[in-house]
């Protein structure tokens, strides 16, 4: 009965969203306060119904109800409880339910945490969100109902893909979806503002914390995915430029541009049209990501079972969303005032450079991801774009981005003197150059040069931000000022500071692991040893070890450095009972400065020999550490008290937003 209850809740949610999409929006035009006031309760109602549906599916998983097809295909009675829970989003139908639930949760959050927002604005934002929800609910009910039954019910489920039975991946999709779906709030705010025809700094201020929130989730989600791929796939890579990874990276790039552009719109009332376009793009790219992942149109290492018919639906939905919002934009854009003027040397200019570069990178990733589709459709053959191309593009453009990132925070709004900037930043430039020379001179081979460029960029970023911080503290009575700022008033500056520091840390990780990491494929006999990257690996053979729902071969390795044993590593090769799918469980000795990573390949010959892969990964942790710092920075910026207090200036737009057209 419970699955039927879940199905019913989905149908009711659809009905409710139809009401939600129409009534508050109509009210905002006719000025009917009662109709507009319905927005908040409707948002809560939608969350409740989808919550019921989600709990119904959860119950089916926890009770091993294999009469539900989705449970039968993705769960198994032997599976640990935590993976029965995460199996809900292990495949298409359930992820879609999670997507929709999160959309409702973001909507309810807007309803709950925006007491200062004018009623007309709330009504429009929540109606626009409901329009998005209609698309997803229809999609789920028509093509991918998670509550479909099978008769007779199988006695045992098919098990979740073993790769997904992992704590990292249990929370990776929810984080990613929170990010994807979170951009729907920025999108809804932009569309609501366009509908009202009033784009001003108040709109930007309302939408900033939500955008940053979505960006934080997306950052964490992508970092978790990268970390998972690193330790779970057994290939030691942290990023593959795979279409599915690109699908999450494009909204991230657009979202990063959006955050910076919103800052200009809020502070200087400039870049308005551009900000709106970015808000539309960030969400459209999230939808595109969903389409790419779910339709199976692209060859991907992440491609789990997919279905083209669903792809067609999402593509149609994508066209409606993008087409509709661009049409609205084209209609309203001429009325948008150009806003605050600024000189070529000003913070606006550097943020503009940042935006153009991020937009270019987004387009490049989009191009590289879709090129195989275009080639195939045009009959030019089946191609794949290799990761060296993506790397080249990012290596070419990121130094420019980092240059602007260093100057931007120090530059004044509206107008600044190049001479003043040079005077305050020459030291940082010199430090960057010094780091570059120091890191690249010894060899001057191409490899050392790229390390030099990377470390030079890091030194430049850290130095410029220290200079910016010092300048700020001088005006704010030093440390006590900093504490006062952190206590609430001005957290967004420190958020920016921390996030930019995260970029510096990230660059160190990427540059070091790409240039100084080593990878060795080798065959070892029990008792044999191998030396690489200054470490000696002693192989003690492989043993059979039983697991809860798999059998494993476990190898034992003693790792020595200078004849001193530093660790023992136990990589495994697992065979899961169901499906008989083998899986490599790498063994990693993690450290702040380096990881040692061993994965078992396959047994060779009769003597107990194994094919092995040994990696030495310097500074690889810094990649994720950088992402964590970026996310923390985002959280700090989001909680700035400025976003929670009403400004007197906010009253003008509220009147306008509630007025009929």
């Amino acid at each position, binding site marked *: 009965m419970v699955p039927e209850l879940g199905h019913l809740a989905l149908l009711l949610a659809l009905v409710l969203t139809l009401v939600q999409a129409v009534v508050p929006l109509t009210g905002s035009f006719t000025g009917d306060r009662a109709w507009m006031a319905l927005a908040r309760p409707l948002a809560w109602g939608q969350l409740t119904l989808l919550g019921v549906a989600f709990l119904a599916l959860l119950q089916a998983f926890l009770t091993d109800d294999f009469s539900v097809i989705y449970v039968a295909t993705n769960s198994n009675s032997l599976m640990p409880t935590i993976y029965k829970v995460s199996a809900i989003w292990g495949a298409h139908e359930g992820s879609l339910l999670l997507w929709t639930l999160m959309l409702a949760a973001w909507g309810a959050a807007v309803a709950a945490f925006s007491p200062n927002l004018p009623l007309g604005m709330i009504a429009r934002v929540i109606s626009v969100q409901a329009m998005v929800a209609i698309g997803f609910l229809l999609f789920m009910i028509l093509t991918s109902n998670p509550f479909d039954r099978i008769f007779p019910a199988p006695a045992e489920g098919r098990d979740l893909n073993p790769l997904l039975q992992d704590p990292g991946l249990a929370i990776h999709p929810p984080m990613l979806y929170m990010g994807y779906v979170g951009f729907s709030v920025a999108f809804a705010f932009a569309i609501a503002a366009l509908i009202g025809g009033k784009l001003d700094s108040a709109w930007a201020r309302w939408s900033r914390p939500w955008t940053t929130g979505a960006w934080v989730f997306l950052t964490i989600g992508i970092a978790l995915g990268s970390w998972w791929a690193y330790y779970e796939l057994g290939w030691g890579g942290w990023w593959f430029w795979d279409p599915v990874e690109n699908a999450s990276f494009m909204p991230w790039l657009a979202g990063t541009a959006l955050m910076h552009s919103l800052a200009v719109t809020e502070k200087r009332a400039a870049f308005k049209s551009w900000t709106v376009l970015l808000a539309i793009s960030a969400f459209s790219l999230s939808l595109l990501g969903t389409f790419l992942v779910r339709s199976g149109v692209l*060859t991907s290492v992440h491609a789990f079972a997919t279905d083209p018919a669903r792809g067609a639906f999402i593509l149609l939905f994508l066209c409606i969303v993008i087409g509709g919002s661009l049409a609205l934009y084209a209609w309203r854009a001429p009325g948008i005032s150009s806003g605050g003027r600024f000189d070529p040397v000003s913070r606006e200019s550097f943020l503009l450079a940042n935006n153009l570069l991020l937009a270019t990178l987004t387009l490049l990733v989009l191009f590289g991801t879709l090129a195989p589709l275009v080639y195939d459709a045009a009959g030019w053959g089946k191609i794949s774009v290799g990761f060296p191309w993506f790397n080249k593009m990012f290596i070419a453009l990121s130094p420019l981005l980092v240059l602007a990132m260093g100057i931007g925070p120090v530059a004044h709004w509206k107008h600044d003197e190049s001479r003043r900037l040079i005077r305050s930043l020459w030291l940082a430039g010199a430090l960057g150059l010094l780091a570059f020379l120091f890191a690249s001179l010894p060899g001057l081979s191409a490899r050392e040069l790229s390390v030099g460029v990377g470390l030079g960029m890091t030194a430049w970023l850290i130095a410029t931000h220290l200079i910016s911080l010092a300048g700020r503290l001088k005006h704010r009575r030093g440390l006590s000022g900093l504490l006062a700022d952190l206590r609430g008033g001005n957290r967004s500056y420190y958020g920016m500071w921390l996030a930019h520091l995260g970029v510096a840390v990230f660059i160190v990780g990427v540059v070091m692991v790409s240039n100084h990491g080593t990878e060795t494929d080798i065959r070892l006999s029990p008792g044999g040893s191998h030396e690489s990257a200054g470490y000696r690996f002693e192989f003690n053979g492989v043993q059979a070890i039983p697991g809860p729902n798999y059998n494993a071969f476990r190898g034992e390795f003693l790792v020595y450095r200078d004849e001193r044993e530093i660790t023992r590593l136990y990589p495994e090769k697992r065979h899961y009972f169901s499906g008989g799918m083998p899986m490599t469980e790498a063994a990693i000795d993690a450290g702040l400065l380096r990881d040692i990573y061993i994965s078992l390949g*396959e047994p060779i010959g009769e003597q107990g020999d194994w094919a092995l892969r040994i990696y030495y990964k310097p500074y690889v942790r810094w990649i994720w550490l950088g992402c964590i710092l970026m996310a923390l920075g985002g959280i700090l910026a989001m909680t700035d008290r400025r976003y929670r207090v009403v400004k007197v200036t906010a009253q003008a737009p509220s009147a306008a937003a509630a007025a009929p057209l």
Partner: protein
Amino acid sequence: MKARQRRLVFVGLAILGIGTASALALSALKSNISYFFSPSQVMAKEAPRDHVFRLGGLVTEGSVARQTDGLEVSFDVTDNAETVKVIYSGILPDLFSEGTGIVAKGRLGSDGVFYAEEVLAKHDTEYVPPEVASTLKTAHAEGAAEPLATQVSEASD
């Protein structure tokens, strides 16, 4: 007026920058794409001799042979019409096994053997790379598009 001129310069620079970037991107793309060929196409001499490309198909049953020492492995890839021998040195992915669909990236040697630098098999046992699926000759391609219900009942058997 002055501000407008400046803005024009800005926009001009932006367009110039994006133009240069896309020109560079396109030229770099040429050397970084790899085409996909099926064994039939390779045998028909359609695949390039001097450029990296991807070869996809099913691993022929009983064809996988490891060297007695070292890491070299050889196997045959087929699209159920033609077969190409592949040599690879290194660790094969977990899901590599006889009868499954794989994609190998590498060069064709003058001896007609494909020397792979990289071998990809997919995460999901049910999954066949779309390119491979579309080049397979009938019989096996149907297996890839098996309806869900039969999979479930098979699994529960």
